[in-house]
């Protein structure tokens, strides 16, 4: 009779740690899963392993000294976060940026967006068991890193933007390399399509998996490609155009259902749109200065709030700073998109299987250090 004491009911649900070190978590993320067999009953993401206190660092140093931190928030779209930070400070202090610098920043940001999406593309397909596309994607990504390296001197944490412009002008070599990259990508999209998009195993692992619908997105503040995958055409580059995005012609791709396949599709099309943006920006690139002439060494901002939103590779990001008139902010808050995107997993994962959890986690494209800050 002793065996009967261990009833099925009590031993049914058990806990499993996914991470903190797991190839599919891309960073140090731990998800505490309560499982019933292969099915997830409850998911509790545990984050904070990469907390560095960027917000505190922002508060106790001048704006200029915080500049390198900005690319280290989301290390895969460092250029975009760097761009957003200088936008915020320029708005606060009132610095006019030369036209050429605006175009250069947009080109650099869009290149960065493609490189971020390419990394996601490669690793996501690898999470699902396909190794070859990863090599193709990293080959292409390497071209972008070389291009950005040639102007900024680094491959990930660029710190390329300065208050009033950028730190180095782009030369004809940069333009030639970028043009060559765009030309190269024209034929690559078809390769990727053949390798992945039409692959039956890939489709089975992503279609109808991890549906995040419009209401769930709204509840959790999900933005970026994950939001657009469920049919909401919301992009900061469109809704609050900064720099020269309002002069460039591009589409905001959307999906319909909001499953992993839609999220894949949206990112895939976004890379093509980014290529379109870069192509137009290169055509329109004006001459002139690449950095504003009169930027004071010591910034003297007015008192008050400044809030600047921008679209990073993962969604709506923003710098919220409160100035007390001193050379550094009194409060520096960073709104990061992955925070809301990962938060939604609390509701998305229950009811799915462990293998699907890997697919879903990959498809929402989180960067953990960005959340941890």
């Amino acid at each position, binding site marked *: 009779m002793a065996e009967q004491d261990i009833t099925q009911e009590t031993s049914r649900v058990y806990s499993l740690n996914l991470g903190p070190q797991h190839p599919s978590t891309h960073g140090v993320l731990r998800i505490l899963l309560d499982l019933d067999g292969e099915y997830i009953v409850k998911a509790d993401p545990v984050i904070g392993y990469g907390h560095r206190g960027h917000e505190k660092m922002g508060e*106790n140093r001048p704006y200029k000294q915080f500049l390198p931190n900005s690319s280290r928030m989301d290390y895969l779209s460092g250029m975009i976060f760097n761009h957003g930070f200088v936008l915020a400070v320029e*708005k606060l202090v009132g610095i006019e940026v030369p036209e050429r610098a605006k175009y250069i920043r947009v080109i650099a940001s869009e290149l960065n967006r493609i490189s971020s999406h390419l990394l996601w593309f490669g690793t996501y397909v690898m999470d699902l068991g396909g190794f070859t596309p990863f090599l193709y994607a990293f080959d292409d990504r390497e071209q972008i890193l070389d291009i950005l390296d040639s102007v900024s001197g680094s491959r990930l944490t660029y710190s390329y933007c300065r208050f009033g412009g950028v730190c180095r002008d782009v030369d004809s070599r940069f333009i030639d390399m970028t043009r060559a990259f765009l030309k190269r990508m024209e034929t690559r999209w078809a390769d990727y399509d053949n390798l992945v998009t039409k692959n039956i195993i890939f489709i089975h692992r992503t279609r109808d998996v991890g549906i995040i619908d419009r209401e769930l997105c709204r509840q959790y503040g999900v933005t970026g490609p994950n939001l657009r995958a469920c049919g909401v055409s919301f992009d900061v580059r469109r809704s609050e155009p900064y720099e020269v995005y309002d002069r460039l012609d591009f589409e905001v791709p959307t999906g319909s259902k909001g499953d992993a396949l839609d999220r894949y599709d949206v990112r895939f099309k976004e890379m093509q749109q980014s290529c379109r943006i870069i192509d137009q920006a290169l055509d329109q690139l004006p001459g002139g200065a690449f950095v504003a002439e009169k930027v004071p060494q010591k910034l003297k901002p007015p008192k008050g709030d400044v809030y600047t939103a921008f679209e990073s590779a993962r969604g709506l990001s923003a710098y919220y700073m409160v100035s007390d008139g001193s050379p550094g902010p009194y409060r520096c808050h960073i709104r990061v998109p992955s925070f809301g995107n990962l*938060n939604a997993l609390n509701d998305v994962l229950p009811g799915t299987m462990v293998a699907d959890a890997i697919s879903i986690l990959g498809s929402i494209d989180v960067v953990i250090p960005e959340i941890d800050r």
Partner: protein
Amino acid sequence: MKLKEIEKVLVEKFPDAPLSRDETGMSGAQWSIAVALSGIREAAKAFDKAGFFLESITALDFEDTFELVYHFNYYEPKSRVVVRMLCGHDEVPQSICDIYRGAVWLEREVHEFFGIKFSGNADMRMLLLPEDADYHPLRKNFGKVSAYHKREVIYG
């Protein structure tokens, strides 16, 4: 359109609350409304009904008070609205996590960084800090800070 709709609702609900429009575009929001600490649930319900999403929750630490800052946004151009509340250093604001599910984490973050407890949020564990942390790093009496002001110094 949504912006007009929510403005009407909020002005009806909070007839005494000062509503300030931002002409300069500096604050990124169309307008901000300062409500009493007890008014956040009413305000959040109105935003929820109008279909807004919660963009961020954060706090500011002043010598005399905390200030909670809520950013709401809608999927249309320029629809960001700010709701601000003063919250004394020993006051307990109400949670809105049953209205916006995403608020659970946002409130946990404000709690660990500032030590502001939200009543009604059952999950007040540390989010980014170690689980046994007994300090609140974004308080101005923690670590190296460049200034600790009264609220009037910045907002007049």
